[in-house]
């Protein structure tokens, strides 16, 4: 997790979003371009420069009542479709990869 104190070091390698957990229930959320939070990844504001990422994160971290633990996460863009950029984010977005109870 990236602490706000380390914001200056932020460099992104490709399209990214800001994600966090909603404060009241912990649900995974994404920062939108309207300065709110959404549970749907396709609503997320996408940034592609480190400066934009830093600004989006700063704004998100400031909204500590809305969501906690905000950080920048990579995404993949495929013909306008937005997908999580790594396994961790895939799991956060789609849920656990396992059957919850034995088949």
């Amino acid at each position: 997790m990236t602490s706000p104190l380390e914001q200056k070091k932020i460099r992104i390698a490709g399209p990214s979003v800001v994600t966090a957990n909603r404060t009241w229930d912990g649900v995974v959320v994404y920062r939108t371009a309207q300065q709110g939070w959404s549970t749907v990844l396709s609503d997320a504001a996408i940034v592609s420069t480190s400066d934009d990422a830093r600004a989006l994160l700063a704004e998100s971290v400031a909204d500590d009542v809305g969501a906690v633990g905000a950080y920048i996460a990579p995404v993949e863009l495929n013909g306008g479709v937005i997908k999580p950029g790594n396994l961790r984010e895939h799991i956060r977005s789609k849920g656990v990869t396992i059957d919850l109870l034995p088949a």
Partner: protein
Amino acid sequence: MYAYDELDRTLINERVSEFRDQVKRRLSGELTEDEFKILRLQNGVYLQLHAYMFRVAIPYGTLSSKQLRRLAHIARRYDRGYGHFTTRQNIQFNWIKLAELPDALAELAEVGIHAMQTSGNNMRNVTSDQWAGVAPGEVEDPRIWSEILRQHTTLHPEFSFLPRKFKIAITASEHDRAAIKIHDIGLRLHKNADGETGFEVLVGGGLGRTPFIAKTIKPFVHGRDILSYVEAILRVYNQYGRRDNIYKARIKILVHELGIEKFAREVDEEWRQMGHSALTLDHSAIEEVRSRFSYPPYEKLPHMPDELKEAAHDPLFERWRKNSVAPHKVQGYSIVTLSLKPVGGPPGDASADQMDALADLADRYSFGEIRVGHEQNLALPHVAKRDLPQLWKALDRLGLATPNVNLVTDIIACPGLDYCSLANARSIPIAQELTRRFANHDTADMIGRLHINISGCINACGHHHVGHIGILGVEKNGEEFYQITIGGRADENAQMGVLIGPAVPYAEVADVIEDIVEAYLALRDRPEELFVDTVKRLGVEPFKERVYATR
């Protein structure tokens, strides 16, 4: 069972009101997350990948049926219908909502359950042998001492802001089922030459990034002095422990850096200065705690009832009995272990329906008592042998009679990347795949005792260092890889496993484990030689060769 007194009940209830107020202030924005974090951690609340995670203490692994029913209710009402039993006699709920947590805590408080000191840099839940009070040959019930320590350390200011978390485990049997050698303090109850009861005190065990096996600093501390002696250890730790570097803050690092002899001298010096303090337990204080533990009104029963003789003709029953049923200190009774490791299931998970049904079975067959062990299994501690066949049928219907206790599919695994925000790699699907590979119980029986432990990162919540086979998730270029160690053990002969070679990718882990097991079957000198003993005799080389020759 242990009966809480008024003081405990008041304390737990006050804690709930306090936390309710803190949550309210957090949700209104009065408290920032930074301010709130330490408060939630003191109440067992973590933030994980998908949600908040809520860790509830099960002191020394003893639960009443009423408490288990309440845990089932919490799982159903506030979570997604299941809970995860951990290696430290806790249960975790993975999907709890912060706004509802105070209500959940209040419902738990009604049955004397809480989440205090299940996280944060304080004295954690004091764990013990899950067979405490019923194991044959035990010196005495170690829970009496766990409870004395619990009372003394709960909300004790000196132990609430330690350099790092602090864990104590207690055993009173020859065979250590509490893994005391991998705890910050391990206590082994025994009697000295004069027949007095006291403790061998071990310090500085722990896994994680820098694993150490605990070392003995005093072979015998009289029972009445245990609080003052533990306090002396903690004072030395509080004084010298590194608060500047989280990776060096555990007592194991201090013990390692000072050396065990110097550390022991420091503790002795501190202890001597404390003199005969208020911490010396008088006989009546110990007896007061002892009297709060009640034991069931056992009947006088035959060693070999007819019901058991008859059921012995059923090979499925016999397989389960031989695997999961252990001798009890009272004739005619048994301790029954319930595997939470069904083939294809996530290790340690139990559904709300299973918990409810098990609570009913505990009422019918085990005087309303359930135990939780560090292997992520449950136990019914007082089952009359004549009831075993009936109980087995009922457990089998619930999916709680998998005859794999201590076998290759009885895997200890942490939540890993499916839940945990610190993970490098997944643990649970690896465990699930392995249980499918070794699903044939005849094969598993033939392999014999073999403990596999899986952790999704170096924090080692799955105790991989001390698994007979240990699997550790690491990340390489964004992919999941796993380091494999063999020859570790967590019992009275605890030692760390040895790495067999380069990490292997996710898709190959189960194949590699199969290779290791096949190599063992070919190499063991007789069927009784356990996997760990073969590794001890031959070293890791032959296993390494087998695994990497073709890769």
